[in-house]
Every structure is written in C-alpha cells, then in structure tokens.
C-alpha cells in the first residue's frame, strides 16, 4: 500500500468493527421487544382497510427493521473480526459521563440562570477535558458570547433562573430578559 492510500480517509469499513456484534444483538433485541408489544401498543380498528389501520406502518417498519437487523447480524458474523469488543462497549458507556454533565447543565439553567450555567458548564467541561489557563479563559469568553448572542441579541427562548428573583426589582427584568 502506498503512502497516499495510508493517508486517505476511511470511507468504507473493512473487517468487522469492534463492538459491531454487540450492537447488532442489541438492535435485534430492541426490535423484537417492540414487535412483541405491537398488539398492546397499537390499535386494530375493525372494518378499516389494511392501509388505513393504525397498526400497519409500525408493523411494516418494525418488521423491516428486525428483518434487516437479523440479516445484518448474520452477514457481519461472517466477516473477519477486529478485537476490542468490550473496550469499545466501555467507550459507549463512558460517553454517558458527558451526557450526565449535559443534563446537569440543562437542569441547572432554571435554578442559576442561563448565563451562570453556561459559564460553569464551559469551564467545568474544559477542565475535565484537560485544558488549563488559556483554555479556561477562552471557554469563559465563548460562554459569554453564546449567551450574549443567542439570548441577549437573538432572544432565543431559554428560561431565566430562580436566583434572578433575588435581584433588585429593576435588575430582575434585565436578568430574565437578557441573561
């Protein structure tokens, strides 16, 4: 293989990616579970044509998803495997840490307000990712820019924080409206 091919971007997968079988099994399990619940989760109305039945499209799409998921599982099982299945699965689980910070950020907006929550989130995440002084400073500026551009200038609908209620009356409106 020449050097250009080595450096060429990866377009189509070669071999089975680590964790692919785990994913295939999970999808087959999910679609099977959903199909097993079809009678309780969708309605069949007597006298209506098949195409107009509320159950028709969920059955068709889930049936298709299960069929292709099973075929995909079967076809990938025959491909040479790259090791690292459980390490890859752990990486998927590891991503939940960041989702946790994200949810915490959203939940904190209604308490401390968008401005403070965004600054804390950006600084906290920057530190977590391993950046220090300059990174933290840039993250703070970025957080300020986001709030000033989207909330103050574009008036994007994001609620104010409960702590804004503690501000003096004149300030309260400004805080709720712009930050």
């Amino acid at each position, binding site marked *: 293989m020449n050097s250009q091919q080595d450096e060429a971007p990866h377009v189509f997968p070669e071999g089975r990616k680590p964790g692919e079988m785990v994913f295939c099994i999970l999808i087959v399990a999910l679609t099977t579970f959903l199909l097993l619940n079809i009678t309780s989760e969708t309605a069949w109305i007597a006298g209506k044509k098949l195409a107009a039945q509320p159950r028709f499209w969920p059955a068709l799409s889930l049936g*298709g998803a299960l069929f292709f998921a099973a075929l*995909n599982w079967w076809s990938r099982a025959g491909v040479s495997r790259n090791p690292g299945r459980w390490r890859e699965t752990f990486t998927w689980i590891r991503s939940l840490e*960041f989702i946790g910070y994200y949810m915490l950020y959203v939940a904190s907006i209604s308490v401390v307000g968008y401005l403070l929550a965004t600054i804390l989130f950006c600084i906290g995440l920057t530190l977590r990712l391993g950046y220090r002084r300059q990174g933290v400073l840039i993250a703070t500026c970025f957080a300020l820019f986001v709030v000033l551009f989207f909330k103050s200038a574009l008036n994007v609908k994001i609620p104010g924080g409960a702590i804004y209620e503690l501000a003096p009356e004149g300030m309260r409106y400004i805080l709720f409206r712009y930050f």
Partner: protein
Amino acid sequence: MDLLLSSFEIIARWDVIAALLIGAIGGVVVGGLPGVGAAVAIAIVLPATFALEPIVGITLLLGIYGSSMFGGAIPAILVNTPGTPVNALTTYDGYPMTKRGEARRALSLAYSASFFGAVFSIVALILLAPVLAKVAPMFGAREIFLAAFLGILLVVITHRGQVLAAAMLACLGIFLQTIGIESTAYTQRYTFGQGWLQSGVDLIVVVLGLFAVSQALILFMEKDKDIKLPHVEKVGFFTQMKDLWIYRRIAAVGSAFGVFCGMIPGVGEFMSQFMSYSYAQRTSKTPEMFGKGNPEGIVASEAANNSVPAAAMIPLLALGIPGEELTAMMLAVFYVHNVVPGPQLFSGSMDFIIALYLCLLILNVIVVAFLYFATDTLMKVMLIPNRFLGMMILTFSLIGVYSLRNSLTDVAIASGFGVFGFILKRLDYPTSPIILGIVLGKLMEDRFRTAMARVREPFDFIDRPIAFVLFCMIVVALLIHGYTMFKGAKAKKTAKKEPIHE
C-alpha cells in the same frame, strides 16, 4: 421578466442580505471545521430562526447549506482531513498537491470549480423551473408515495457495503415517526402510557441528537491533533478562473453529473462525485496521476459536489421530497417557517422559488469573495483542538434542543439519540437513513393511505404515466443493485480461488 422582478423584490431587503452574509460566511467557517459540518450547524441555528420571517430564516439556513462545501475543501487540501464528508474525494488529489508545494493552486482550483458547479446548477434550475411548474401538479398521492419510496431505496442502496445496516436504520426511522397519537383514528402508538411520547418524536430533537450531540461525543473521545498549516499565498479571482478554464470540460461534465444526481432523491453528492471523478480519470491524459495530485481530480470532485445543493432543492420544493439528510433538514426548515414545499408551492409561488435560487446565486458570489480575502484567517479555525470543539458543539446544541419547548425531556431524548449516533459513528454506520426514514416515512404513510382509498386492484396503483415510470425506476434500481451484488460476490469467490502473486 415580471417574475424575475418580483423575485428580486422578495430578496431586496436588508435583513435578507444580512441573513445571506451571515449564512454564507457561517457556512464556510463551519465547513472549514472538520467534525462540525452543515447538518450540525443547521440543527443548532434552526430554532434561533423561529422568530425571523420565513424568507429571512430560510435564506440564513440555505446560506449554511450552500456554502459549507466551499469551506470543507480547505482542510481537505491542506491537512488531508475533509471538512465535510463530501470533501473526502478532494483529499485524494488536493493533499498530494499541498505536499508538492502547490497548496495555493489546489485551493484556487477547488474554489473556482465549486463556484462553477454551483452557478451551473442554479442556472440550469432557473431554466428548468417553468417545466417543473407544469410537471409538479401531475404528482398525486401515489406518485409522491412512489417517489418517496424510491428516495429511501436509493439512499439505502447507495450505501455500498452497508446496505443492510442502512435498510435497518431507514426502517427504524420510519418506525420512529409512527410513535405518538396518529392523525386518522387518534389512537396511541408505542407511547407505553407515557404522556411525553404522545406528541411523538420531534425531528429537530432527533437531528440535534444524531448529528450535534453525537459529534461532540466523538470529538471528546479523540485526541487533539497537532496541525501544522502550510503557507498559502493569495491569488486573484480571475487567476483562479483562468486556471479552471484549462479544465472546463471536466468542470462542465462534473456539474452536469451533480445536477442529474442532485435531482434524484437519495443519490446526491457521493454518487455525482464518483461518476465525475471516474469520468475525469477515464478521459485524462494522465490517469495514473489520479490520487497523486492531479488537478483534474480536484475539479471533478468539487464541481460535482457543489452543483448538488441547488439541484437537490428540486424534489424538495416541487414534491416535498428530500433526497438526503441536509435536504431533510431543509424540509423541516420550510415547515417551521410555514412554507409547505410541494406542487402547490411550485405552481403558485414561482417568484418565491426563483428568489431562493437568486439567493443561492448571490451566496456563491459572497463565498468566493470572502474566501479571496479570508482564506488565511479561515485556516486558523482548523487549529481549534478537537475536544474543545466538542465542548463548543455541546453548548450550542443545547440552544437548539432546549429553546424548542424548554423541555428537559427533549434534551433527554436528544441525549439518547446522541449516544445512539455516537455508537453508529464509531461503527462507521450511516446516520442519514434514520432522518430520511422519519421525514419520508410520515409522507409515505399519509400518501399511501390516501392513494389506497382509490385503488381497487394492485395495478391501479401504477396506471398513471408518472406512477408507472416511478415504479419502473424502482424495479430497475433493485435489479441493478441485485446485479452489482451478484457481480461482487462472484469477484470475491474468484479472488479467493486465485493464488496470490507477489
């Protein structure tokens, strides 16, 4: 002439011009950031445009859509990393040229070929518009169903090597749109008794999760790259165009491929690039130089991919059928701004359609002018570390999700799809079939129900000329795919049997 004047009247406003400027420049910057892309940017900015007038909001997002590929060529050529997925082919010849010290020429060829491709397709569409206005009303429920089905089928079979995964994900997308209270008998589907599922799964929430949140997670798991930018000299616009003139045949053919593939739902940039690149290589005097820094390769790739966005607007505007993830998002953009794409829009508001095409035309001029002055500055955005960029994307994505309904549930759903998209990207599985499944699934369900009410025998479904042509196209697409699979399997068997010669 009156039509053109009234179209100009629609866009001759300071806010439309400002939206064009912001969209064009924003799109180029976003395209220049490997790992962001137009889909993420549109998903983030879309909710911020709710308060704007339809033409302003649509222009802003159209600007991002139409200009991101220009920016995507910069990292593709300079650091061998495509800014957007469709710039991948540009790396093949762009980066070797940079290594030879011809970065300036490679960039100018990419810009001029992109500009040529975009203008070519817009002019073709403006000329085609009156014909489309006549054809569009001939599409009834069954034709739209068949066209949407063809779109999904083409999206699936163009994912070579991943057809089964793409089909599975498209079916999952179709299933996702069925969740909630359906609109005919008002029964609940797959709500599991949960109130928050009754209104269904919001497309924007899914898009933000699958594209923005997942991309942030991908970037968090990567190591920051040490990027060294090569020196690039400034080059005049006319010099750029003069250089392109040498390769005018390839640019014209590439653009024509782009227009053709863009018009067919589900085909899009990758197929047009492949066709254009193959054509350029086949007809070149130096085919052995392709992949090693042949300027013809850059022209073929960039002219083809930049002529697709305008062409992809045809099935979207005329029939309301998006061909790929970005047009699916543009469809959401139109709906949000109370503009319903379809035959009625094409036949009743032609001035609006032409105004959009004019916006695309002006957009390309703005982008080329911006790139002429700002390439040096733009290159610096590539120096933003990956994980820091992930933090920025996650912060931006909150605006998109949370500002919709201020709902923590929406954020949780987006996060769920973010993790799902993260897994798909780690496995190299495509994400676009899910989005198309959601958008086209709804359309297919509604149109199929309407069409079947008037169908007595199965053949009634295809007894109209357009429906019959679409049905034939579906059969031909399936046959071609079956034949390709058979040929591939045969070639594999032969390769296994033959001994390996050193």
